[in-house]
């Protein structure tokens, strides 16, 4: 058993039978290793899974005890971060325009094809690709320039949220659970951008992170 905090939409009833929420392994864009993600019913939404993990924790769940004391969170994630992994791979391999369903192929992570079903994928993919239409069919190729522009918007949005939520971003080391009465006015705009860049870098590979920092 696991204890998980998820948005309500995760537990919406599926429109089709046998297409309820699905936990699946996909390639983490930052590490290149497998990580667990969650698709909502009908695969419309993608969620990343994080665990709050303190070493000395366990659960009582009903009339049972469970060693693993992790508390899981499923939070919405932009599927384009995962689509990017395959666009960049395709660009490195041959640099050709391809249909998305041929780009999103991975023997190790076969569920990556489900990213196509996410509502936002087709709606927003133009932010990170060059597109061509031939014979009514669309073909895509990674665009670094467009991707960096898109990522910058992500960073800017993140900066706004960090400020709004009073997240501590300055260099001083302090536990996040310590709540000071003092407003964090010491942080500069640079601090916020650096912090936001760092957060976004959790969702992209190292090369792209470096390019984004330069950008």
């Amino acid at each position: 058993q696991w204890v998980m905090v998820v948005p309500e939409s995760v537990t919406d009833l599926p429109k089709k039978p046998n297409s309820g929420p699905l936990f699946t392994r996909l390639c983490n864009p930052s590490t290149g290793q497998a990580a667990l993600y969650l698709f909502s019913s009908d695969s419309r939404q993608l969620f990343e899974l994080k665990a709050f993990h303190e070493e000395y924790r366990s659960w009582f769940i009903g009339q049972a005890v469970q060693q693993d004391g992790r508390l899981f969170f499923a939070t919405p994630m932009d599927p384009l971060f995962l689509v990017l992994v395959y666009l960049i791979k395709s660009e490195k391999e041959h640099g050709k325009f391809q249909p998305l369903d041929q780009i999103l192929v991975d023997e190790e992570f076969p569920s990556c094809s489900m990213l196509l079903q996410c509502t936002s994928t087709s709606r927003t993919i133009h932010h990170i690709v060059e597109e061509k239409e031939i014979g009514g069919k669309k073909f895509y190729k990674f665009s670094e320039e467009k991707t960096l522009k898109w990522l910058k918007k992500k960073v800017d949005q993140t900066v706004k949220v960090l400020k709004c939520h009073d997240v501590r971003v300055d260099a001083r080391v302090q536990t996040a659970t310590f709540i000071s009465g003092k407003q964090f006015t010491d942080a500069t705009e640079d601090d916020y951008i650096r912090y936001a860049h760092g957060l976004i870098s959790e969702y992209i590979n190292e090369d792209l992170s470096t390019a984004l920092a330069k950008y």
Partner: protein
Amino acid sequence: MDLRAFEEDNAVSCLLDSAAPAACRTQPCCLGIDEAGRGPVLGPMVYGICYCPVARQGDLEAIKVADSKTLTEAQREQLFEKLDAAKDFVGWALHILSPNFISTSMQRRAKYNLNALSHDTAIGLIQHALDSGVQVAEVFVDTVGPAEKYQEKLKQQFPGLEVTVKPKADSLFPVVSAASICAKVARDRVVKNWKFVEALENVDSDYGSGYPNDPKTKEWLTQCLDPVFGFPQFVRFSWSTAQVILENKAVAVRWDDTEDDPSQKSAQSLLSYFARKDTPTRRPAHRFFYERKLETVTSL
């Protein structure tokens, strides 16, 4: 002796007392302190005080209070009734330290050992008598530990009082014997009427003497042990008898101060911290996540 307050919630400690007689509030009094139930692994420890005007000590002796350990339970009950009936010149107070309180105190991170607990309880009872208006002039205390140090501690706490701490004071001073009877009677009644909040099933009601070296008591402890929760709150978890059974038969539990326990540590060479790691290091997680102890999930 109305023990209902303790019986209703035997997880917490409880102080109860008689009314302070008018004579005790106007005349200098002698006050005796004794305890009951220090040794057993089961049930509460009870500290008792008994006091009367110095001039009436002879009347107290006439009640024939004697060393409570030599009396039967029934005899102690009878003597207590006589003490309680002597309301015009005898007063008493009791502090019942629940086994749960003893266990948690002794196992806190800032350890509160049994001696400190005992001394503080005794000090608290003397203060209670003073706060009730009793004109305490002399204090007599029974002790198992070093008498001089304890006497000095009490004298420092109560500089205006004449304090005498002696081993076997219960057989030397009638007022200590009386306190001993009050404490013992309270403990006997509480133990007899103990309500197990855990609703134990299939457990023998005969747990022997309650002393750690009693095989019947040890057998009972093993029988009522729950592998996850340990013992009922009737048991003093901090007693080594209980701890040994937990270590052998209960599920292991680790706390974040377990690392401070030398028996849990394995010696690690300082050089090991500088050793080259075989596995390639990946980018560390952003501080947003590690400050909040949030990790990426790779498996369930």
